[in-house]
């Protein structure tokens, strides 16, 4: 059985990271920005999984499981914060959050 080279996974993860960075920079909606952050997180996760592919100690796989948990926590907290921001400003675009002082 042939094995897929690790470098293929690294290329896909580089693409996902670059797409996430572009979404982060180009979109003004906060939920969109959050999705870009999720893409970056998953690119890092794919790297960890690819490097632990044939590693008998499986350290990258364990780390990526914990990264998954932290990503979910980040998403829940961030959406709660977005909800509060929406209650205060009636808008969720990043350029509409202005201080009143």
């Amino acid at each position, binding site marked *: *059985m*042939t*094995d*897929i080279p690790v470098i*293929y*996974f*690294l290329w*896909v993860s*580089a*693409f*996902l*990271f*670059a*797409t*996430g*960075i*572009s*979404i982060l*920079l*180009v*979109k*003004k*909606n906060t*939920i*969109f920005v959050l*999705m870009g952050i*999720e*893409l970056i997180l*998953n690119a890092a996760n*794919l790297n960890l*999984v690819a*490097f632990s*592919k*044939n*590693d*008998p100690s*499986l350290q990258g*796989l*364990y780390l*990526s*499981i*914990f990264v*998954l*948990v*932290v990503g*979910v*926590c*980040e*998403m*829940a*907290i961030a*959406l*709660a914060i*977005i*909800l*509060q921001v*929406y*209650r205060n400003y*009636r808008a*969720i675009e990043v350029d509409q959050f202005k201080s009143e002082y």
Partner: protein
Amino acid sequence: MSPLVIAFLVLAMLTCGSALSMLWTKNLLHAALAMFLTMLGLAGLYVLAYADVLAVAHLLVYVGGVLILILFGIMLTNQTDPATGKNHLMTRESGRLLPFSIGLSFFLGLFWLFTKGPWVINLPVTGDSKLREVGLGLLTEYAFPFELAGVFLLIALIGATFVAKNHD
């Protein structure tokens, strides 16, 4: 080409294509659906990297949890157009040229780094499911981080409900 590589190519194209459509579209709901496809392709890539445990966890967490959270976020922050009474999901963007070129340069730089990098990856191919090893490891060697992750998740979810509460 072996069937494994063909499966990898299909899944990589699904992942990268839907990530690109996430970047391209201005409709928030279309982006959420494209993110669903991205996560599906990523789970397939995890299976091809022999991480089937992580693939199932990833599908459960992202499709079952995060995507539902995002859809609720979209619904709760709707901005109805006062003139027509319709809810437009179209989002605004800053200029596309500069962010796209920054993203492209990131991709080319990482591509160059990964291709030129002196990786020493000559481990023997194990090529089987790691369910047993991961289960044993999470309950023996990594038991403390595992429990800590559970407590962390509990704290984060309680904190999220507290933050999202109406504080008036």
